[in-house]
Structures are given as C-alpha cells and as structure tokens.
C-alpha cells in the first residue's frame, strides 16, 4: 500500500488529478509549475554537451519520468512510488536484457538502491559493430527534457538500469 497521504498531492489537493493504478489504488501526484524558458534552455545546452547522441523530444518541467509514462505527461509522480505502480498495474520484472522489447520499462537505481528513473523501450536496433542489440528508450530527465537515448546514456544522477518490467501477455 502507499503510505498515508497527508496534504499536498493527495486526492483532496486541487493541484493533483485523479490518478489510479489498474487496481484502483490512488497514485499521489502534483502538477508542477513550468520552469522558465531560460532554465529549460540552459538544461538543453548542458545535456547536449554531455550526451551528444541523446535526441531531445520535448522540454517541459510539469511532469517527471513517472508522470510521463503512467500519467500521460499530465502530472508529477514521485519515483518512490514507481515499483508499487508497476506491481499494481500488473507488470512483471525480469533481468535478461536480451528479452527487452518495445514497450517494456527500464527501472534505474542509484548506488543507494533507491529507484531514481524509469524509461520506456521504443526501439531495438541491431548493433553491427559489436554484433549485439542497441536498446533505444524514451525518458524524461528529471525536471527537464524528454529524450530519446541509448539505455545507458543518461546523466549519472539518474542512476543505472537495474531491472526491466513488462506487462506483455503471451497467447
């Protein structure tokens, strides 16, 4: 269960929106104000230097990575809630990167073992140079832009891939 909800972000907070998991558990959320264009531009500039290959899709600070994938970019959901959401939405974890497929989720963790980030696989490319696969994901980098990037190509503060989750059903 989610912890007891007090104050901001609760169902009674007019700044939150109705948002629930598949089993109708309320997901605490909060609509964040937009950052000024100068802040967003600075972020784009800094990330372009450090992550040249990452492609910016959109730049807005009103939602985060969890809000992007589980609230259709409408609101901010703390990453601390991510694992609970995945479980209650019927996702199953797996570790084998070879089994990753389009639509699966990649959960990132920091060295302290805290969930820091989530991305969704958008493309699996053949990497002829190494004879392997290149996993391309779409994710929201903290307060800043939404980027299309390789699995490992994220700012270090967003952590490293720790587990993969899928809701695929085989028939």
């Amino acid at each position, binding site marked *: 269960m989610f*912890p007891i909800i007090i104050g*901001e972000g609760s169902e009674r907070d007019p700044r939150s929106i109705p948002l629930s998991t598949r089993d109708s558990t309320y997901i*605490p959320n909060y609509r964040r104000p*937009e*950052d000024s264009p100068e802040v967003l531009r600075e972020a784009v500039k*800094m990330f372009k230097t450090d992550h040249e290959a990452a492609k910016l899709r959109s730049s807005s600070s009103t939602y985060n990575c969890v809000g992007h994938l589980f609230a259709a970019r409408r609101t901010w959901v703390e990453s*601390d809630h991510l694992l609970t959401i995945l479980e209650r939405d019927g996702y199953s974890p797996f570790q084998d990167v070879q089994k990753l497929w389009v639509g699966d989720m990649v959960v990132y963790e920091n060295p302290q*073992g805290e969930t820091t980030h989530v991305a969704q696989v958008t493309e699996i490319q053949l990497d002829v140079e190494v004879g392997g696969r290149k996993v391309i994901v779409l994710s929201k980098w903290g*307060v800043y832009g939404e980027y299309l990037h390789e699995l490992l190509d994220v700012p270090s503060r967003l952590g490293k891939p720790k587990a993969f989750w899928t809701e695929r059903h085989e028939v």
Partner: protein
Amino acid sequence: MTASEAMNDIERLKFAVNVGLANSFRAFLRNINSEPSVSELLVLAGSREVALDVLKRLVSLSRLRVDFRYLNRFDVPMATYLWVLSRTFPELARAGAEATADLPRTWWADQVCGYILGDWSQKPAASTSAGVTIMSGDLTNVNTTNVAATTSRFSIEPLPGFETSKESSQVKSDADESSEVRYTEENGNGAVPTYTTNSASKSLAEPQ
C-alpha cells in the same frame, strides 16, 4: 570559497539544472548534498554569523518579483538555503521556512518548508512505511529500504539530512530589509543576482 561565492554559485542556472536531475524529493536532497558549493556553505554556515547571512539572502530572494507563468526562478536556491540552515541552525531554518512557506510558484522550496515546519514529521508513523535510518547525519550513510514504501512528498517519514526543530516555537522572520539585490549577466545565461548585505542590519529575533 567564501560564503558569498558559494551562494552566488548556488544561484546560477547551472546549479539549478544539475540538482534538478531528480525525480523525487529524496533524490533532490541527495543532489544538493553532493554539490561542492553546498558542502562549502554547510561548513561555513556552522558559524551563526554566516548562517544569518544565508537567512538574509533567503529572505531577500523570497521578496523578488515572481513571473506567475513560471516556477520561481530561485526555487532551487531557496530550497538549498533552507536545507543548509536545517543542518546547522534549525531555529534559523524555521524562521526561513516561515518566511517562504506561502510563496507562490515554488516546488522544491515548498517541500523543504513543509518538512521544516513539521507538516509531516509530527504526524504518527504509518505502519506500512519503511524506516529511514540517518547515520551520522550524512546523506552518504543514509540507509533507505523499500523505495516503493518510502516516499517524500507524500510520506510522513523523516527525510535524510534534516535537523528539524522538534519544538513548535514561533520564530519571527525579521530579516534586514536593506539587503540589496543586484543583477549581473552571466555569459548570456540569464540574470544572476549578486548580493551585498548591510552589516549594521537588524539581527533576527531569537527563538523563544
């Protein structure tokens, strides 16, 4: 690095971008704690005189005009100053939080204020929440378990790094009104405020 230099660094856009790489309040606190300028300021703010300067600067920032279309440009610096004060002089942190708690268009600062003022920390613990153990008051030693169950914005659990005052003493924020805020351009990256404070300013009211 002097306290003034540290504060100027904290108010740069680059700092805001670096620490804004966070998808939770907990991650934000870790980010500010790992910034060199914050580490410097934490040490310097062990002195009450410097801590008072930090509080004055915080109050000065809180009085700047806000463009209501956007988040307060100084949301991150205000949150950082509150956090630094909470680690060094909790009573000053409380004064700062009371001065900034009702500011519009803030995000991180709003959350730090909420915590300092005890909106969540004084509530009874939820049985489903995992504990957060603070060892030596250092974020690098914080032991957190069950990330799905430990939350920040919505949790009543204590957060790492905070030294919140348990008393609900009323501290009047009475910072120096004559502090000056001036702006200089920083390589085209937007206005960066630099400050001078009046050394003959009124001292802050002491906590009861």
